[in-house]
């Protein structure tokens, strides 16, 4: 069985982001970019499943501009077998629905038994692509996964999900889509030999035309602004003073 993992290139999680003065977006030039942390967890999970013998190949996929090849190179250095880069060229960042359609088209040619994605990207925080590609492919979905068990014989995945009320367990027939939550695993670091080895692995470039996917833009960014700042508070000296403030100034007790 083959596992397809989708990875996204985003502003590194440790970067303090700056909103552009013209409100057109967030500053991304001269900013460190990395693989979305949830996608790293997705790659790690795919590798672990392959290492357990339940899968034979891990294919990493990314949709975006030319620099996405770096992100795919990271996935290959972690241990993915090969990669596919769908070049979105000069198009503005694609909406999750378009990315889902692209992933669907790739899944139809690659025919993976499992598709793993991060539950959300830490830039747009959309939390949509996995659910959408599952819907388009008519595959069952296990979102926000914190534990995945694969039964190779029965072709079933048991997925534990982090939901508001606790932990929910689902059983999914393969092929299926899984999206990862933070506690699913601790992603590995790429070792130097593996980084070297990754340089000879193949990143196949695919154009949007080849995939014949309709790119929809039914959602338009009007502006990006800074959130209102909270006014600086005060440092108090005792519990008594705190209780007094909460009672008589903030009036919340």
């Amino acid at each position, binding site marked *: 069985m083959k596992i397809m993992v989708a990875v996204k290139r985003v502003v590194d999680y440790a970067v303090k982001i700056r909103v552009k003065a013209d409100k057109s977006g967030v500053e991304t030039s001269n900013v460190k970019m990395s693989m979305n942390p949830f996608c790293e967890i997705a790659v790690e999970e795919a590798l672990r499943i392959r290492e357990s013998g339940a899968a034979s190949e891990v294919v990493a996929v990314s949709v975006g501009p030319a620099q996405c090849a770096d992100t795919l190179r990271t996935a290959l250095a972690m241990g993915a077998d090969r990669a596919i880069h769908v070049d979105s060229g000069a198009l503005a960042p694609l*909406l999750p629905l378009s990315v889902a359609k692209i992933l669907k088209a790739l899944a139809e040619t690659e025919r993976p038994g499992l598709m793993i994605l991060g539950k959300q990207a830490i830039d747009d925080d959309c939390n949509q692509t996995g659910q959408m590609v599952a819907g*388009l492919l008519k595959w069952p979905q296990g979102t926000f996964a914190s534990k995945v068990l694969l039964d190779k014989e029965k072709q079933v995945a048991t997925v534990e999900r982090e939901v*508001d009320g606790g932990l929910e367990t*689902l059983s999914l027939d393969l092929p299926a889509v899984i999206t990862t939550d*933070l506690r699913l695993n601790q992603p590995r670091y790429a070792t130097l030999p593996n980084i070297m080895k990754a340089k000879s692995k193949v990143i196949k470039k695919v154009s949007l035309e080849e995939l014949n996917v309709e790119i929809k833009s*039914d*959602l338009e960014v009007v502006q*990006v602004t800074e959130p209102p700042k909270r006014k600086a508070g005060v440092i108090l000296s005792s519990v008594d003073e705190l209780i007094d403030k909460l009672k008589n100034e903030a009036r919340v007790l």
Partner: protein
Amino acid sequence: ISTLVLAEHEGGLVKPSSLSAVEAAGVVCKEKSISVLLAGSGPRLQEAASHAASCHPLISQVLVAEADILKHPLAEAWAKLIQLVQQKDGYSYIMAASSSFGKNILPRAAALLDVSPVTDVVEISEPRLFVRPIYAGNALCTVRYTGSDPCMMTIRSTSFPISSISNDSKAGAAPISQVDLSTFSEETLGKSRWLKLASQDSERPDLGNAHVVVTGGRGLKSADNFKLLEKLAEKLGAAVGATRAAVDAGFVPNELQVGQTGKIVAPDLYIAFGVSGAIQHLAGMRDSKVIVAVNKDADAPIFQVADYGLVADLFDVLPEMLEKLPEK
């Protein structure tokens, strides 16, 4: 203009977060044309339907889908149900709360309807103009939906507080109708099965709706120490929350996590003990009305958002607060 609200129910009642989605629907739907969709099976579903019919003056219709496959909130069946209802009734808007339920189901349904949905709406400026946080709330993005109907979104319930609960149970109750599920069959149904839900039963208020939240971070050091926090929560009638670090360390279960990927809260009073204030955590609580931080480290970023700070050992402060706070 008509709006469909996907609602969750529990114990025969519509969940408060779903009623927040009704409030949000009220912003785009001035006339009384909001339908609430409930699904499941058994007597609890019918109780929830009666509750939905009379609990909010904006609700004009309650749609009930009763089937075994809908007994648990499986995205495959729910998304199909939404597609079915939309094809029949043609709503202009489809909304749900940004709960794990809404986030799991709504995007899948949107893909079936070929719509780009909007996640985590915190403000509706114009009927098709929405504000949503990006980068863990470090920026706000205004987006316009330019596609055809339906416009679909999940809303942050903390941004749409419930204002108009009506208590006169039967007066002016909205009609309840059953969704015709005779055509409800598809190859995806049955490819997923619900096995179980492990949850911690708690007497305390729900984290998402509590007026007061007390949160512990890594500074609490152990699961046992969280019991101190629970005592304080009891005294304040508060819910207990935790940071990702505290959850990862195994002090408390995951459903208590407040932050970018956990729960978003905006209580009247938020008290953080031993919380450093990582941006991912701040994303989940920055809209609280009054924030109190207790931390030994005077440089902890949490103090930059706190209205009141105490630079002190939480193990001194907690017992003192327990002793000195008035009973609720």
